[in-house]
């Protein structure tokens, strides 16, 4: 229960930061994706289910205030959290390289999903323009922010949240 409350407030705080303060550190109008870092970190540190719920609520908040359709970002963030949850048992969460790589992959997935489902379907074909202009800069910036922010999420997880039973989420148990 305690970890759920902490998670709730972390999500709200990240959403607030993302929609207000992050814009002041934007480089070339590109902002890093703090919400995605949160989803990936929670997936990596607490498993698939936590990653999924974190992603879902981050996405719902984005949808409610800035989305054109309700449920789109919720789904994309949810899958990002869920997929990064697969690394939960394989890697230790105190190494910085794993979340960095994972964030890069998930940011690529997230941006391609947004492009594929919302821009390509409206006939915007210039994938490479978007790739150079938005996707790659955002990935680089997000990975850079991961280096700073992951430590904070790590401390939040270990100090304020209950430890998760590792076995229950493991994909190796049944094999």
């Amino acid at each position, binding site marked *: 229960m305690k970890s759920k409350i902490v998670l709730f407030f972390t999500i*709200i705080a990240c*959403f*607030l930061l*993302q*929609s*207000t*303060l*992050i*814009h*002041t550190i934007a480089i*070339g*109008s*590109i*902002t890093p*994706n*703090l*919400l995605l870092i949160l989803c990936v970190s929670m997936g990596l540190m607490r*498993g*698939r*289910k936590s990653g*999924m719920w974190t992603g*879902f609520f981050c996405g719902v*908040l*984005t949808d*409610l*205030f*800035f989305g*054109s*359709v*309700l*449920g*789109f970002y*919720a*789904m994309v963030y*949810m*899958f990002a959290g*869920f997929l990064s*949850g697969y690394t939960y048992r394989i890697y230790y969460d105190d190494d910085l390289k794993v979340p960095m790589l994972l964030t890069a992959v998930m940011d690529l997935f997230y*941006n391609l999903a*947004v*492009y594929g489902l*919302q*821009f390509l379907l*409206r006939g*915007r074909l*210039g994938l490479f*323009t*978007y790739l150079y*202009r*938005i996707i790659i800069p*955002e990935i680089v910036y997000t990975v850079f922010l991961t280096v700073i922010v992951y430590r904070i999420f790590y401390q939040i997880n270990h100090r304020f949240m209950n430890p998760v039973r590792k*076995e*229950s*989420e493991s*994909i190796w*148990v*049944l094999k």
Partner: protein
Amino acid sequence: MKNLKKKFRFRIHLKSKHLLVIMTFFCVSAIIATLASGVSSTPVKEIAGMIVVPFEKSIAAIGSWLTDMNQTFREKEELIAQNKELQSAVDSLTEQNNILIQDQAELARLEELYELNEEYSDYPKVAARIIAKDPGNWYDTFMINRGSNDGIRVNNNVIAGKGLVGIVTEVGSTWATVRSIIDDSSNVSAMTVSTDDTCVIEGDLELIDEGKLRFSQLYDREDKVSVGERIVTSNISEKYVEGLFIGYVSAIELDTNNLTKTGTIVTPVDFQHLKDVFVITVNKEDAIQGGAES
């Protein structure tokens, strides 16, 4: 006992997968519901707004307070140096003032010509401050600190000092979200000032860096529209009130069909550093109905 434990684990393991499938269905049905049947999520938005908006407002307030503080300090240092400069500037300004008075007379004449001045000041306006921006990089929407309590409704037009900024898409009691005209999904029906030819202004993410918008379907057979032409919102637009200034034509070319023209326009609004906007609290429908009554 061992069996039971295994069973328990098995259940939990399945659950996370099943949960994903269930939530995916939930999301997909929410998308379909909002897209197809227009189910409104306003009550949920209202509740979420009650939690989030006060914080956003205070963060925005603190941000502007810090900027003000920073400016005060900077000003103090520069004040002495500036004083000297200002003295010398007074002379040249006096001279410029004379020119400006002439310009003003010309401006008044031009405004009379376009009848823009009257229409702009005729619309009731509400000043608002931007408190949050779209978290992603793909779209260009933002949130303002006024809502239905201040008389803002969906489809209200938003302007900044120099021109059209966007349109209100969602409204809560103390907040509203605005989709700007440079957003990739934005379309505005517009017309040229000199010839009254209509065209469609589309936001384009590929042009956003240059501060430009794309226009298309301009029917201009006699080649009267040239670079520098003023573009305003058209009289046939359903959502935008007539005569709001959008920008100047910066490039124009004939389409392959030899009938219509496309090109780019430059907007005078600095979307990167937008802070304060005005919301016109009259919708196009009201304007039409009001005109019919009187």
